[in-house]
């Protein structure tokens, strides 16, 4: 098999890898934001529950959680491995993203909330217009770390049989007896994906930066 077809075959798995990431990362973000708001502003009992959720979800290896969630989902609802895997990764990521956003919320000074209340805003309004906009800016650096992790963890759905990059590399290495080349290609593609993501997020951070005189 010539080189270009070889690479093409593996690269076509990128669609699946990207698909998994595009489902997992944003769903993790939305859940993470909601959970973080509940954690910080929801009172003592809510905070305890969120803390428990965080400890459990971050204490169990992602591969184990992936399998558990996958089997639960494919058992009850009829989901393909791709969807079950993606949603599972999203749920797993939400615990990490919750911690990131929570950390960022806590970094926004408490005075901002007080100032918002002082002009008659409700708490919800303050969170939405004052706290969150500042939080999301602060969260970008640790979040781009998490984005890279989700891209890399998407390789775990290999174990569910999803024909993403790694699975394709394995299939083609078996048929062409070129495992080193196959896995190196796979590694290279992941590397490029992570690089692009980090670069884009770095630019986003620069764009959103609030101007200040040194």
């Amino acid at each position, binding site marked *: 098999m010539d080189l270009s077809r070889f690479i093409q075959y593996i690269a076509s798995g990128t669609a699946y890898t990207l698909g998994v990431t595009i489902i997992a990362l944003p769903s993790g973000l939305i859940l993470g934001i909601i959970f973080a708001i509940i954690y910080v502003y929801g009172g003592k009992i809510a905070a305890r529950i969120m803390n428990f959720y965080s400890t459990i979800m971050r204490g169990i290896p992602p591969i184990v959680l992936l399998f*558990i969630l996958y089997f639960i989902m494919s058992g009850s609802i009829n989901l393909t491995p791709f969807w079950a895997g993606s949603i599972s990764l999203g749920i797993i990521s939400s615990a990490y993203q919750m911690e990131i956003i929570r950390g960022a919320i806590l970094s926004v000074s408490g005075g901002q909330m007080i100032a918002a209340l002082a002009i008659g805003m409700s708490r919800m309004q303050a969170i939405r217009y004052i706290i969150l906009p500042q939080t999301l800016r602060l969260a970008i650096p640790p979040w781009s770390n998490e984005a890279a992790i989700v891209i890399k963890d998407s390789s775990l759905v290999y174990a569910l049989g999803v024909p993403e990059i*790694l699975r394709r590399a394995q299939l083609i290495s078996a048929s062409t007896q070129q495992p080193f080349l196959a896995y190196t290609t*796979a590694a290279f593609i992941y590397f490029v994906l992570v690089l692009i993501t980090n670069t884009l997020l770095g630019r986003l951070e620069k764009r959103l930066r609030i101007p200040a005189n040194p």
Partner: protein
Amino acid sequence: MADWFNLLVRFFDDFLVGAMVTLELTAIGLVMGFVLGLGLALSRAYGSKPLRWFATGYIELFRGTPLLVQLFLIYYGLPSLGITLSQSVSAYLALGLNSAAYQAEYLRGAILAIGNTQMTAGRAVGLSRWQTIIHIILPQALRLAIPSWSNEPILLLKSTGVVFLIAVQDLMAKAKRAATQTYNPIGSYLAVAVVYLAMVFALNALLKLLERRARIPGFELAGKKGEI
């Protein structure tokens, strides 16, 4: 689902053996990663240009690609270059090389924080560069790094979970066996999840102890313990 407990009891011996393997993988990966990571950190902080480039390249590569791919590359890929390694050795190697890249960053951060002033002080007293690094900078840097570094053992423990995919008989492998024997995948993996949690808690407690013992009073990094 709730029968995870029964499964845990039934396969306890098996799971225990698997857990031991997991811990072994973690320990070896951690130590390897530390030695190599320290070398990389020192290279980046004090090395010549080519050495710095190599270290940076290594770190970017290993942090920019999935552990699972690295594992497969070592176990399945190297043989075609004439290097055939057993499953266990491949696992140790992958975990160690991978962990080194992350540990290098924690250590480098601490070294930079100690930085130039201490180097100046050491040289001023007449120590050579190398002596200053070993006797002045590293002792402080290593202790300073502990809060942020202690993320790594736990991350490593969790990441060992993938090695069962090259048939290393760790805890996940035992879970899979239990699942195929009992046709109860959810219960089996839940049972192991509990075991992993127990290991993580224990490791966490150990690390907190280490942190407390090693702390230099009044001297802390804006430490990011607990942030993953």
